[in-house]
């Protein structure tokens, strides 16, 4: 096994004590990621059914976190029926490990994305009707993230901007 292999463990509130020095950097998105996992938003997200994982390297350092949750949105009227979807509410990598390790095979961001897609399939398999779409929100200026998501078959939904932050929504059609 490579020394770059990450481990994934479900996050609990008690883990926040270990995140005192965790920082995703000083950009808007980086600060938002840090605040999300160290503050209360992660707990609210878990309350709504999200699973959150902490990723550690072989030296037991926290490399990052990822999350996956269900949402039930309604189709526009007159349909109005519910659609069950999976979303990645937030994921972040500590700034010390961003772009690491060199070489794509063991790149931490790729291991995390692969893990979240795997978990989305596990979640889908537990539903009566399989979930077709995995969605995520991305800051329009976060070009490296958009590029990464595109490599994992996420496609930008055109003409959709969410909230005052003008965030974009990307969709991934889950494999059967």
């Amino acid at each position: 096994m490579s020394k770059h292999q990450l481990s994934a463990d479900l996050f609990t509130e008690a883990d926040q004590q270990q995140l005192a020095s965790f920082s995703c950097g000083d950009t808007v998105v980086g600060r938002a990621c840090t605040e999300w996992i160290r503050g209360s938003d992660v707990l609210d997200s878990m309350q709504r059914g999200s699973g959150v994982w902490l990723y550690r390297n072989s030296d037991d350092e926290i490399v990052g976190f990822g999350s996956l949750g269900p949402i039930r949105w309604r189709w526009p009227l007159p349909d109005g029926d519910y659609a069950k979807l999976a979303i990645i509410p937030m994921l972040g990598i500590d700034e010390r490990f961003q772009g690491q390790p060199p070489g794509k095979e063991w790149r931490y961001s790729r291991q995390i994305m692969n893990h979240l897609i795997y978990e989305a399939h596990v979640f889908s398999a537990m539903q009566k009707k399989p979930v077709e779409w995995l969605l995520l929100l991305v800051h329009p200026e976060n070009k490296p993230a958009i590029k990464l998501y595109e490599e994992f078959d996420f496609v930008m939904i055109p003409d959709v901007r969410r909230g005052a932050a003008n965030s974009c929504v990307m969709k991934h059609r889950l494999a059967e």
Partner: protein
Amino acid sequence: MSTSETSNEAISHAIPFLRFLISMPPRALEEFCHALMECSGQIRADVLQMFEIAEDESLSVDERGHALRTIVDQLHLIPDDEGRFGMDLARSEELAASNFPALAYQVGRMNLQESEFADRLRHLMKTKHITQKELAARIDCTQPAISQMLNRKCRPQRKTLNKIATALAVDVRELWPDLEVSEYLDSVAEFQQDDRIMTEPEAVALRDTSQPRSKLKGQPLPSRKK
């Protein structure tokens, strides 16, 4: 109004309440009846009225929710943590922050944001030679409001920040660097809300099956704990 009309009305008012009683497990029913017996006549009448609102399907979900939460309060006879009815707003933050580390983190962030804002505002007012009174007049608020902001006792609303930024001819982020972070986190929270009706472009995108299914199945990662 005849006596029979009055009693018919009384019965119809009691129906939602009786329906609720029947649905309760025996232990909860016992506690509920006990609490109700200890109430004054006024509160008991209010409880019945709240049941009526909570059961009225012609009313909105919001109204019915507020009514149900009222009943819980009316039957909550034991004073709260402070030993009194209700909670002191300032103390409730302090108390909750001491019990919930995540709230303590949030309170710390808010305090820091307000203190940084006060410093930045003070500095800008000084360099631009603007008095509190002048700034208040420019943003259509009172001088005490500006004074409280400088004293870190008034967390400005977003619209106030915009007005101050315009009045001082600066970018709003110069006053409140965390603004975009908050907005991004707000949009993440909003994104995760159930029951939201999709916008038309979202619906079109999610009905579009021309996008092929991904071939990626992902990969599990080992657990450190295992």
